[in-house]
């Protein structure tokens, strides 16, 4: 019972709001609050943070009342979620590390394909190479974005 309640969707949602809201409130208190007529930098964020906490508390209260019929926490498919995010981070690391646009796109596309369904190696490599070529054509040749194409040696 307690376990089911703790892992109900709305309880987790409310906890998330309470944590975020409290963080905003605490951080806002570090800035000058001022008065309503002369608001300091902390005034408005404090209001926003306070409201987040209030909404979190109301959602929590309603979830506790509705506890027996609460919707459980939904499951998730780890591979597409983590794989997609990881491929984005990979793109950032490669392009930020001077890997050039072509290589960054190639790796992003390949990693993304691998995190989806029906992953087939050869078509994915062809797609990644095609996207790398198209990206270079559109963004560097066409739109003249100041990005290196190939890795700096």
């Amino acid at each position, binding site marked *: 019972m307690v376990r089911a309640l703790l892992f109900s969707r709305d309880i987790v*949602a409310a906890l998330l*709001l309470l944590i975020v809201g409290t963080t905003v409130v605490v951080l806002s208190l570090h800035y000058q609050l001022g008065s309503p007529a*002369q608001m300091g*930098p902390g005034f408005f964020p404090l209001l*926003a943070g306070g409201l987040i906490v209030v*909404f979190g508390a109301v959602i929590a209260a309603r979830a506790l009342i509705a506890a027996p019929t609460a919707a459980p926490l939904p499951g998730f*498919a780890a591979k597409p979620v983590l794989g997609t995010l990881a491929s984005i981070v990979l793109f950032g*690391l490669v392009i*930020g590390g001077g890997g050039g646009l072509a290589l960054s796109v190639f790796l992003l596309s390949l990693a993304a394909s691998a995190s989806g369904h029906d992953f087939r190696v050869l078509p994915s490599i062809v797609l990644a190479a095609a996207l790398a070529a198209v990206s270079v054509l559109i963004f560097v040749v066409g739109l003249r974005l100041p990005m290196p194409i190939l890795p700096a040696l």
Partner: protein
Amino acid sequence: MDFASTIGLGLAAAATPENLLYCLFGVVIGTLIGVLPGIGPLATMAMLMPATFALPPLGALVMLAGIFYGSQYGGSTTAILLNIPGEGASVPTALDGYQMARKGLAGVALTTAAVSSFVAGTIGTLALALLSPLFAAIALQFGAAEYFMLMVLGLMAAIAMAHGSVLKAAAMVVLGIALGCVGVDVNSGVYRFTFGQTNLAEGLGVVAVAAGLFGIVEVIRNLEEHTRQTSYGGSLGRLWPNRREVRRALPAALRGSAIGTLLGILPGSGATMAAFTSYTIEKKAARDESEFGRGAIEGVAGPEAANNAAAQTTFIPLLTLGLPGNAIMAIMMGAMLIHGVVPGPNVLVEQPVIFWGLIASMWIGNVILIFLNIPLVRLWVWLITLPYRFLFPAILTFTCIGVYSVNNEPADIALLAAFGAGGWLLVKLEFEPAPLLLGFILGPMMEEYLRRALLLSHGSPDIFVERPISLALLALAVLVVALLSLPVIRRGREQLRD
């Protein structure tokens, strides 16, 4: 300036070769993503916004607007052929459009949808041109207190129209406002919530936030749900409706245009609600209600007209009051701000070429769309069969390059991933990202107006009730909240969700 000369000014600005090209580009991409399942106008606009930074302001806005109303056209194609509405606003179209397709009238349904959209687009654009000066004239009377209340009202309306829990939508709005506080506070020069990161000084980048919340989340959700690939096997049949069908469709399209024009103006409402309302009205007005759901042509003409007219008139509050009525308009607003165009009544006065040029381009875009869609229907049908496993790496690629290109800053990619992850978590917990984006865009302006209003009143909140326009806006906002708590309305919202 009189009406004819302002329209002339707009047409001259919109009909330059470059702007025609941007318009064509926008509506083609819009139609494409409307047709393709699994990518919506929000994600596409966020993805392509950086590509418009290099364009002149008018060209950029023409293209982004084209993506939006183009997607309304495209969404109806998949709704009719596959019973998969590409956008929420095409859901009612699927009800009767798909049944028409099953009877071998797919071509007629598609043509009816395209022509109705064109009629509505023309009426909507005309309404936009006629009504905007009136709205702007009212808005010129606004002071800080009125603007603050207007934004409160806009956010209330967005909460009212969100799917699911009202409380959760409200929480998202405030969370968005809090995220909007990140960066240098313009009044004191204090760095807020930047954690020593200098690249956060100008706040969280709107491109990374929007692309993460909509683009990345959409990709992850599609991969998680692993939607089955569908394709259209049937033939299109004849394309043109016969005289009897025209006589039924035309009045429906005109009624739909009127409904869409009106509902589009209301903040929070927009194309989806217009389409649903039009469908309900057509069903009530029909001589034989039992035909609905079995391929009634009115059920295609009305909602398609309504969603397209609304797509045009949702620009009215944004362009004249500076109030984005939904998340798509919030992205438009973000793009306008980046180009140094502050949405509001002053656009009309100070930048008439941009204002009338954008409006004229929407009508030109509708002309392009009708010439584009009827001959290209077969191409769109073929595109639907494109497997998602080829599509999503391309979406991720263009999103990442777009976000990176804003500042050539790898930290922006980290931000994109963070908002993708955070947005995904929120969606899993049944929070909607759209109200969050609205709060994020409006937050900094609300803070500024609140400060100015209270500075004027020496800290007294009475200023919001002493000024008549502010009081009226406040009353409307309270009315929205009161309506939300009525059991009848709550049930209605639940039904709309299902």
